């Protein structure tokens, strides 16, 4: 694995991820309790599903694969929730640096990511903006 780059060296087109993780019941319960849900819903096949907002931080876990973690401010988020994630499945996050710009003297990075489960179901497509020049 190549050494991590500094986040400020990120360039448009850089790949981020893949980040693979198991959507455990513990993780699902954490996301559910944040929004006051006591029980998991089940899908048509009877599998328990997690609140899809459990994936809202996937982009950060993906960029941390390539770049060293540092303080940054999350300024924008866009999510297209496609399928609820099934508890117990592995999820894989991939993506890229979609944009980098300077606004009023501050540097911003934009990440686009897609989260799939191991069966190939798309779970969420996301676009997140970070202010990296604090």
């Amino acid at each position, binding site marked *: 694995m190549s050494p991590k780059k500094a986040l400020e060296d990120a360039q448009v087109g850089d790949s981020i991820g893949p980040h693979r993780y198991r959507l455990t019941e513990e993780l699902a319960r954490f996301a559910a309790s944040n*929004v006051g849900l006591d029980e998991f819903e089940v899908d048509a096949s009877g599998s328990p599903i997690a609140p899809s907002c459990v994936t809202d931080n996937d982009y950060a876990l993906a960029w941390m694969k390539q770049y060293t973690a540092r303080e940054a401010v999350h300024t924008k988020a866009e999510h297209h929730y496609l399928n609820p994630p099934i508890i117990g499945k592995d999820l894989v996050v991939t993506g890229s640096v979609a944009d980098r710009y300077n606004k009023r003297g501050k540097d911003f990075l934009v990440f686009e990511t897609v989260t799939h489960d191991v069966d190939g179901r798309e779970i969420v497509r996301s676009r997140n903006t970070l202010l990296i020049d604090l």
Partner: protein
Amino acid sequence: MSISASDLKPGFSLVDTKTISTEEVLSFCRRERELEGRPIDLKNIHTDEEVARSYGLRGVVAPGVQTMPYIWDLLREAFGERWTRGGKLAVTFTNMVCGGDTLTTQAVVREPAENEPTNRLYLDTWMENQRGEKVIVGKASVPID
């Protein structure tokens, strides 16, 4: 409560209010890091009240991934599967949320803009604190038949 998206008219409003305590912010940040396998001893504006106050903040700052799901949940409760299978949410974090803040989350149905497909229901959404300051502003949409 699940609402039929196709029956909704512009101006229809969804609202929810919640107070987020300092302990909820601290425990969210600690637990999130634990579950994601990241170091939990990091001191920053999210995890340490002293650090937050040194930046002139009123208290620890709730991360966006803690507060944005309140909008997700407002729309899930209203639209059920329409939201969880096809919902879109785009937000800008406009102000910091500190432990102890009372947050009112709203979503209001609006007319589609000229360039927007008519097979979706569009909402303006925002969250404001007890001072009336908007902390999140954004747009959402759900598929309709």
